[in-house]
């Protein structure tokens, strides 16, 4: 089904809606939106994204696959749940947006360099490696993702916070040397691999 990336989708056909319903977490709710726009107005990140949730849902129904999956909108979600609370149709909008983000990432269509996506990736990678997130390595990886010079600048800017965390015993500078992992690192990794396999199978994904 990877040919979907390039397939021309006819307008206002079910194809893309169905794809979303089948492959996106809570995607079957998209059909229920009545375009009132309360989610768009309720989102605190509203001024920063390109498309509002309600507009994303209309785009899905209009078959605008490429534009939806490359949109940065769903990457902006901070899970504040304002939209879910206010939606008159009780759509789990937060979850749908996360689902769409995940799906576009899996398809490799998510916008490149999108910071949320980068953080999520780093977080995930750190997690999979040792079964826990290494705060120091994770922070440093984030600081240095845009190059060495920028990394130093970022680290300097965050110096105060870092020192505070060290003093409070929340951050151990020695973790840089490898850091500790969870007890059964291999077991966790196997578990994650299995979960991924199940999900892929369910959603018909290969990657």
């Amino acid at each position, binding site marked *: 089904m990877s040919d979907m990336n390039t397939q021309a989708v006819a307008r206002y056909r079910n194809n893309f809606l169905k794809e979303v319903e089948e492959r996106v977490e809570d995607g079957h709710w998209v059909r229920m939106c*009545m375009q009132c726009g309360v989610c768009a107005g309720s989102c605190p990140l509203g001024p920063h994204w390109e498309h509002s949730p*309600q507009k994303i849902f209309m785009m899905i129904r209009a078959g605008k696959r490429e534009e939806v999956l490359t949109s940065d909108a769903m990457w902006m979600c901070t899970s504040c749940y304002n939209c879910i609370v206010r939606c*008159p149709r009780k759509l789990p909008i937060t979850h749908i947006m996360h689902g769409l983000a995940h799906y576009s990432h899996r398809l490799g269509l998510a916008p490149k360099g999108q910071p949320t996506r980068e953080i999520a990736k780093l977080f995930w990678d750190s997690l999979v490696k040792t079964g826990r997130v290494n705060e120091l390595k994770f922070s440093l990886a984030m600081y240095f993702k845009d190059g060495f010079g920028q990394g130093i600048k970022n680290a300097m800017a965050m110096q105060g916070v870092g020192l505070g965390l060290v003093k409070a015993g929340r951050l151990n500078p020695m973790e840089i040397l490898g850091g500790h992992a969870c007890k059964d690192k291999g077991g966790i990794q196997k578990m994650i691999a299995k979960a991924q396999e199940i999900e892929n199978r369910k959603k018909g994904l290969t990657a």
Partner: protein
Amino acid sequence: MTASIPTNQTILVVGGGISGMTAALEAAECGKEVILVEKTPTLGGRTAQLYRYFPKMCHPTCGLEINEKRLRGNPRIRVMTMTEVTAVAGRRGDYKVNLKVSPRYVTAACTACGDCGKAVSAEVPDAFNYGLAKVKAAYLPHPMAYPQRYVIDPSIVGTPDGEAAKAACKAGAVDLGMQEETAEISVGAIVWATGWRPFDANKIQPYGYDRIANVITSVEFERLADPHGPTGGKLLRPSDGKEARNVAFIQCAGSRDENYLRHCSRICCMASLKQTQYVREAYGEGENGAKSTVYYIDIRAIDRFEDFYAKVWQDPTVSFVKSKVARIAENKENGNPVLHGVNTEGYHRYATEHDLVVLAVGMEPEVTGVKLPEDVIQDSSNFIEGSRDGGMFGAGAASSPLDVNRAVQSATAASLRAIQVIRKTASTEAA
């Protein structure tokens, strides 16, 4: 106005708003005996509290006058105000109904001269004006109240004020010893014309009805526009009494919302369109003139109401924004409500200040939360569909969110169905 004993040939109509009055009058004008019970001290219901009707912009009290005249001239209807149904037993054609009559403390000898009102000093919230004003604790509910008889608020019974009212009444109509009474009556059929109530806007947290003074409801706005209302017909906002020239109307305040009322209340779009014309009437066009903004999901101006929508649409003082408003904040400096949301037609974010916000609150059946006889069938929003035994009927806004015209049609239909029940009872007994 009759004292004939109710039998299984009598129709009971519950609710004295326009639907109940219609159901009762239509049956009585077919020659049937009717008992009309009303919970409040006067007939007229919610329509009497409206300033004008859409789309003709005529006055509801005009029709009320004719219906009151019909009532005065018809010996077959017995009106019982301050009366509630507490229980219904029996079945189609043979119901036993328990009634509870609350004390009015004023007898039929009252001439509505107003002396008791002058004599008392205590004031109580004015229900007719949705509590926006106060009335004396001895009061006529409104100038067209039927029966035209004063009411004494229970709060002054046993106080010097109550005694003052009694002393002032030359007709001897004040009876402070009146007690709650109960009665059991027999009837053949029951029409539930219990109407609607405005959805409680306090529940819509993001709109701040409970904390922003200048956010009011559509029913309250009717009272502001009415010359008999608390502001003498001036559109003055609550916080500072300033003229509200720039008014926002928010549609679906409670309606079409699974968090509140899942149904569409039908009337609110037209009611808001009508209310934009109150603003226009008050301030006209121009720089400092009227400015109304309607925030909507779909404008439901059905059938020939479309004409009215078209007219308002072309009105330069009115603009439309396709948006369910997300939240309302208050500008603390001037008390203006600030509306936040997105116009979904093409996506435009707004944060707009208005002098006043009117929430077009939905219609909730008045019987929501009330235990009705088990046989009554209600839909998922508590509107009354009828009864399993086929002897009880919903009429008007008790049966569905309806405008006045449709409510009267519904009540007329319910009236005929009730007549059919008692006719069948009669023919069975004769056989």
